[in-house]
């Protein structure tokens, strides 16, 4: 009897092990092109109107699309029609934008449509989408981008802010579906950035049937026109599986490219998307992401905010042990600016440019770059990052040359010789290890001229609250581009005493007047000159101490083709290809 029990236990253990091994090593279809990516934060759902973080925006763009997009292989960014048949025609006064919509584009098949078959996209869908962003019941974080821009939209919003049910059939003067495929926007005043706004995620076309059918659960049931479909989003799952959209239109890989991307034209003219399936893992911790990438079970690893993985990046190369495995590095500067923002409304800094300039001169950005970015970041001279109109590569901010003697002189001129009489200045930072370290570095720099800094760590909501309530003296922030126009950065200093923005609370009449002149101008050399002038003013008035424009390193395996990363580009997975033969060969080296 005892022997029988022992035998039974043994058989059970063997069966258990066999089952376990089978589960772990289930082979996938060898001919299927499966792209495996990873996200570092939870996805907030698939409602384009609510998506305000990069991680969710990346997922939404796999499913939904907008009227316009950016050319995948051209830099500086070039707007191209996406769901629109062509770029818009713009009226002479710059206020009326007319779009033709591509015919025959279908929404994904979904139970929200009759017989479960996706219907054709029409101009009215964009009218509905924009109204939905403005609907006070939806509380889209993006409405401020459209506020006081489109004729009648603010009045429509204000009306329904106090009415229980929003009526989407009520016409808005500036939003018109002229016919089934013609869409017209009428703006209150010229707004040259408008086409960029239409390329942003919150303007992606949403079918009203899905919103009505799923109600509050719409965010878990994405129904777009994009290259991939997702059955349903389960927020409890840390794994999303997208399939190639069988009804996707005939969209082709671009056949033109900027000089730097000529080598990415091998798939020119091929029908998109190029992969059959995408699996996206959500792993908030860096170590498992990094180990899975090295194991070859994740194809692409965005290591921009990582601290372990980034160690393998040496200048513009990666460690030889990774090169041997065929791993590739993509490294481009982000269109973002790191700042130690000065609260210019604070009694200490208001009307005391010399004090602000002294702090800026004492900050050693070269060392900062070496310590925190291994020297790969671009030193920031002012607020506009590289790649945007108004950025001058050769421009040097006279208050960004690390010069302690000059800083001490200016400090004396400001009324604080050797820092005497100056109270302890607080620097509020987000309470992550890296931000604290950056704060401590800033403190050390200032100590050299006798300025005492106290680093105050905060949770992110606390930090925002303190900035909003003007409780900070200095605070560390970074600002990234939403669209490729420097206006998105220059606006941060326009009458910023009246809105939070980056919390600079800066108000310079000359700057404000020049800004007002520049932002209504269509792109031109004249506008570029004004942008440059504004950028110089933003530098020399020192409303903030600019640190660096961060680099953005991404690692990907050798079998991944056509990969590139850029700030404003979303939904790029449709262009990625996988070389299955090379994958087999390279994986043998793991």
């Amino acid at each position, binding site marked *: 009897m005892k022997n029988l029990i022992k035998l039974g236990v043994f058989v059970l253990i063997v069966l258990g092990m066999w089952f376990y091994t089978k589960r772990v090593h289930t082979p996938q279809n060898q001919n299927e092109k499966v792209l495996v990516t990873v996200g570092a934060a939870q996805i907030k759902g698939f409602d384009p109107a609510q998506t305000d973080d990069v991680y969710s925006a990346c997922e939404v763009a796999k499913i939904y699309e907008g009227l316009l997009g950016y050319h995948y292989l051209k830099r500086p960014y070039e707007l191209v029609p996406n769901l629109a048949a062509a770029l818009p025609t713009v009226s002479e006064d710059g206020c009326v934008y007319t779009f033709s919509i591509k015919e025959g584009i279908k929404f994904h098949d979904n139970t929200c449509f009759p017989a479960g078959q996706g219907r054709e996209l029409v101009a009215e869908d964009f009218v509905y989408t924009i109204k939905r962003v403005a609907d006070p019941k939806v509380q889209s974080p993006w409405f*401020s981008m459209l506020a006081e821009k489109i004729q009648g939209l603010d009045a429509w919003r204000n009306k329904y802010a106090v009415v229980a049910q929003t009526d989407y059939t009520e016409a808005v003067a500036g939003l018109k579906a002229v016919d089934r495929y013609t869409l017209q926007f009428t703006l209150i005043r010229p707004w040259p950035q408008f086409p960029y706004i239409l390329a942003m995620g919150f303007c992606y076309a949403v079918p009203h049937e899905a919103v009505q059918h799923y109600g509050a659960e719409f965010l878990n049931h994405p129904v777009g026109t994009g290259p991939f479909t997702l059955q349903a989003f389960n927020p409890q799952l840390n794994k999303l599986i997208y399939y190639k959209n069988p009804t996707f239109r005939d969209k082709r890989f671009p056949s033109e490219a900027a000089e730097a991307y000529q080598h990415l034209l091998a798939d020119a003219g091929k029908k998109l998307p190029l992969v059959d399936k995408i699996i996206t893992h959500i792993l*908030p911790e860096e170590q498992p992401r990094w*180990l899975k990438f090295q194991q070859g079970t994740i194809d692409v690893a965005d290591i921009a905010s990582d601290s372990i993985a980034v160690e393998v990046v040496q200048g513009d190369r990666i460690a030889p042990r990774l090169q041997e495995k065929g791993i590739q590095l993509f490294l481009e500067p982000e269109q973002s600016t790191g700042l130690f923002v000065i609260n210019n409304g604070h009694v200490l800094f208001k009307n005391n440019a010399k004090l602000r300039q002294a702090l800026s001169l004492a900050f050693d950005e070269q060392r900062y770059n070496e310590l925190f970015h291994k020297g790969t970041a671009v030193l920031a001279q002012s607020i506009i990052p590289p790649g945007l109109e108004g950025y001058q590569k050769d421009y040097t901010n006279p208050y960004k040359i690390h010069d302690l003697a000059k800083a001490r002189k200016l400090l004396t001129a400001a009324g604080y010789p050797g820092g005497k009489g100056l109270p302890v200045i607080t620097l509020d930072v987000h309470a992550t290890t890296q931000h604290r370290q950056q704060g401590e570095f800033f403190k050390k720099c200032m100590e050299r001229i006798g300025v005492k800094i106290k680093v105050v760590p905060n949770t992110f909501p606390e930090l925002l609250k303190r900035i909003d309530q003007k409780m900070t003296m200095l605070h560390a922030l970074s600002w990234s581009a939403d669209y490729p126009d420097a206006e998105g950065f220059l606006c941060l200093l326009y009458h910023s005493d009246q809105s*939070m923005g980056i919390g600079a609370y800066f108000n310079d009449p000359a700057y404000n007047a020049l800004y007002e002149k520049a932002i209504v101008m269509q792109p031109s050399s004249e506008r570029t000159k004004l942008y440059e002038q504004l950028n110089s003013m933003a530098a020399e008035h020192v409303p903030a101490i600019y640190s660096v424009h961060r680099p953005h390193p991404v690692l990907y395996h050798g079998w991944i083709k056509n990969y590139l990363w850029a700030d404003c580009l979303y939904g790029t997975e449709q262009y990625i290809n996988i070389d299955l033969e090379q994958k087999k060969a390279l994986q043998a080296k793991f």
Partner: protein
Amino acid sequence: MNMYHYAIRRLLYAIPVLIGVTLVIFLLFNVVAGDPTLILLGKHATLQQMVELRHELGLDKSMLMQYCDTLKSAFTLNFGRSWATKQQIMQMIKGGAYASLTLSIPAFVLASLAAIAMALLAAFFRGKLLDRSLVVVSVIMMSISVLAYILFGQWVFAYKLGWFEIAGYEYGFPNFLPYIILPAIIWIVLSIGPDVRFYRTVVLDEVHQDYVRTARAKGLSNRIILFKHVLKNAMIPIITNLVIQVPSLILGALLIENFFGIPGLGNITLQAINNSDFPVIKAMTILSSMLYIIFNIITDVLYTLVDPRVKLK
């Protein structure tokens, strides 16, 4: 006293506790925490939008009315939707609890059985090499940070040796099995140290009692003395220690879940705190206090089952 009456009376006592908990969390959130509208509206927030959103969220109501809403949700268990993710909070909790429990139950059961067995052995061989070794190993295991176990375990056993999945999770049995083995082992290693020391002390208190000497004098075997007499009498502190851990099993293990990508309740709580997501923080706090109250009552009832001398009053 009837057990049901006792349980009902204790549950009624829980009401003021719950009111106290909701009051503390409400005050903490409204006085100390950041403005949720800034988080929810993001970097383009305008003053008007913030005012509108405050109205939508009911934050412009009087403090008393807001607290009444909090109390109402605590008693109806209708926590609404998350401010940050807009997901149904009860759905989030159900999914999270499932994931947390698939990891914590097997780990907890195995760790407890192993710890009790080791404690009995250590107590039986008190002062001998085995006892000393077990104590030393327990202290060493307790002294190492949980993070060290996780990082080492992931790197060596999952990445280098490939025995386990590095991270991830899939719902449904047996799909989750490959993902929970390594985190469960780490959980067991983490728990065994303190548990062995605690249970050893409990058992040692018993082995010096007169009834053990009597049993020995009667010629009973060591196995019977330990498992039949000593263990039964040591059950009250053991049960207290075991049952009081149950709520934390449901509420998840924050670091282990986070590093292994297990979408449990620990993860949900952490994100809610980072986002000032008050409805989720509120739901998790109320849920945890309710669980602790319920499992305290269960502990009391279990005492009467293992020791007839204990009476419910």
